[in-house]
């Protein structure tokens, strides 16, 4: 309980400028009202520490910004209903049901091969590339079935961005890495400005501003991953899927990406797969624990980590298997 309190207060580690009145997601207020009181008190103190040290844990609980507060609770962002996924004969996901609310961070944990990546990839139809992939059931994004034959996957991917496990910049300049997506999708914006804001959001601007025409591959692994994140947010998606975004990185870079993610969580809904329990605990508001293609347990992160309902969950998060 202690840890979760800490993480919760971390919500308010954000630049002073952004720190206007902010409230938690309504559905969570109930279970966290106790912490909430605590958080408000420590609020100011944390802001100061934030400004003083870079090392602060910027963690994020679900946050709804002013505008989106009203509709965030009314309907699910993503609604997974009876989804079963096969690769050829091999069943990777078994009749899964899950509702995902907007502007939260959802962490997906579970042992290797339990279907986390598979599940994540079905939200932007990246699985379509895999031969033998078959999906039954429905996934609704804001009430629309994204697997309807009338839906063009390209449009789905425009709204639901993705960051991959291995940094995969496009084999072109840093600038084009970011500007290309918006450009082919016909976004009418000032590309120079877009590139700058995205790189700034990804905490990469200062390191690359003088070499935007350099090939994306000439960056370090951590920088490449931040470029990939910048690229994803350039499309102004509503949801960002992240498949183990820190697993190919050293602890420092991983830390920076984590900070970035919690910063992004204010504007985007993030679905993240991770093998790192601490990371899941630090970053997410909700955690989904999967095993062999099924959801064993899901719920608010602090609850799942502090008082899991299932023995399997307890075993997994305490490292007994996985």
């Amino acid at each position, binding site marked *: 309980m202690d840890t979760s309190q800490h993480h919760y207060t971390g919500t308010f580690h954000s630049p002073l400028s952004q720190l206007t009145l902010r409230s938690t997601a309504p559905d969570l207020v109930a279970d966290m009202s106790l912490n909430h009181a605590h958080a408000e008190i420590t609020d100011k103190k944390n802001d100061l520490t934030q400004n003083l040290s870079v090392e602060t844990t910027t963690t994020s609980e679900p946050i709804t910004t002013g505008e989106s507060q009203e509709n965030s609770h009314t309907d699910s962002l993503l609604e997974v209903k009876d989804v079963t996924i096969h690769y050829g004969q091999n069943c990777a996901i078994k009749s899964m049901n899950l509702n995902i609310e907007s502007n939260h961070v959802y962490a997906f944990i579970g042992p290797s091969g339990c279907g986390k990546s598979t599940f994540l990839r079905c939200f*932007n139809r*990246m699985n379509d*590339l895999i*031969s033998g992939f078959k999906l039954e059931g429905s996934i609704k994004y804001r009430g629309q079935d994204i697997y309807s034959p009338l839906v063009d996957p*390209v*449009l789905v*991917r*425009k709204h639901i*961005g*993705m960051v*991959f496990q*291995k940094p*995969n*910049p*496009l*084999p*072109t300049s840093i600038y084009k890495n970011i500007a*290309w*997506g918006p450009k*082919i*999708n016909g976004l009418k914006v000032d590309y120079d400005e877009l590139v700058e804001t995205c790189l700034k959001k990804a905490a990469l601007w200062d390191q690359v501003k003088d070499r935007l025409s350099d*090939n994306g*591959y000439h960056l370090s692994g951590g920088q490449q991953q931040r470029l*990939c994140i910048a*690229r*994803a947010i350039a*499309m102004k998606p509503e949801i960002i899927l992240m498949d183990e975004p820190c697993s190919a990185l050293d602890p420092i870079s991983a830390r920076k990406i984590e900070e970035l993610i919690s910063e992004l969580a204010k504007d985007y809904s993030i679905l993240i797969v991770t093998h790192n329990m601490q990371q899941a605990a630090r970053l997410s508001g909700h955690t989904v624990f999967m095993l062999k293609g099924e959801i064993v347990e899901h719920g608010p992160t602090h609850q799942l980590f502090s008082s899991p309902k299932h023995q399997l969950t307890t075993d997994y998060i305490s490292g007994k298997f996985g």
Partner: protein
Amino acid sequence: MARHQENQDNSSQSGFLFEESTNLQRRRLLATLFRRTCRAISYLLVGMVCYLLWDVFSDGIPWLSWDFLTHYASRLPEKSGIKASLFGSLWVIAITITFALPVGIGAGTYLEELMPEGKLKDLISLNIQNLAGVPSIVYGILGLAIFVRTFNFGTSVLSGGLTLGLLILPIIIIVTRESLRSVPQSIRQAALAMGATEWQVVKYYVLPTSFSGILTGVILAVSRAIGETAPLILVGAVAYIRYTPDSPLDAYTTLPIQIYNWVGKPKQEFHELAAAGILVLLAIMFLINLVAIVLRQRKQKTYI
């Protein structure tokens, strides 16, 4: 630090790293054997090529002159040249490339990147693979039936070029597919995840990234087409021609046919003329390769 010191101290000629191991010796011996065999084979090959080149050069060099390039073939060796066959070859190859390059790369790209998996795709792939192994004379017969007769192009340079185009089409398709396959999947995923269509991914990233591989294959295929004789004889390239083609429907001859013709003559001078013709053919291939290398290097600067 202390450990390091210790290691330094007994850095004599003893320790388990210095022990003899028969197993390792045997493996080392095998490795050496393998390396030497490979080296011997490659030296042998290079030697053979050098001998051939030397033979051709010593025969052909004296005959190489501007006149040789600008005269038509003649009954008199000293008045003979390759003007008709040189132009004919260039015409044929130009037609071959214009036909086979877009069709081959297009088909390869479609098969590899865009076509849905299925029985039809497997069937087509299998057939293309088989076609690549079909003897060139068969393509000659095909060309005769299709281009000369059915399309009524006659025994023209167009028929010849298209026939050679058919001949190298399977090679270009296969090479294109191989090069496309070597483009990392992560690039496709990256571009698709940004809301690109399959075609945009192919156009902006996959094709440019595999450019050099495709180019290499195309050059090999075109080199083969330049040297091809048998199918052209079937579709009616003639040896004695005293003009250069002006249109795709003109009659023509090509360098290999001219060379073949000269080699068949009894007079020694004609054999030497053939050698000179071979030198010109080699020069053309060398030039094409050079262009490929330059293009490849220019491209490599832009991609990865």
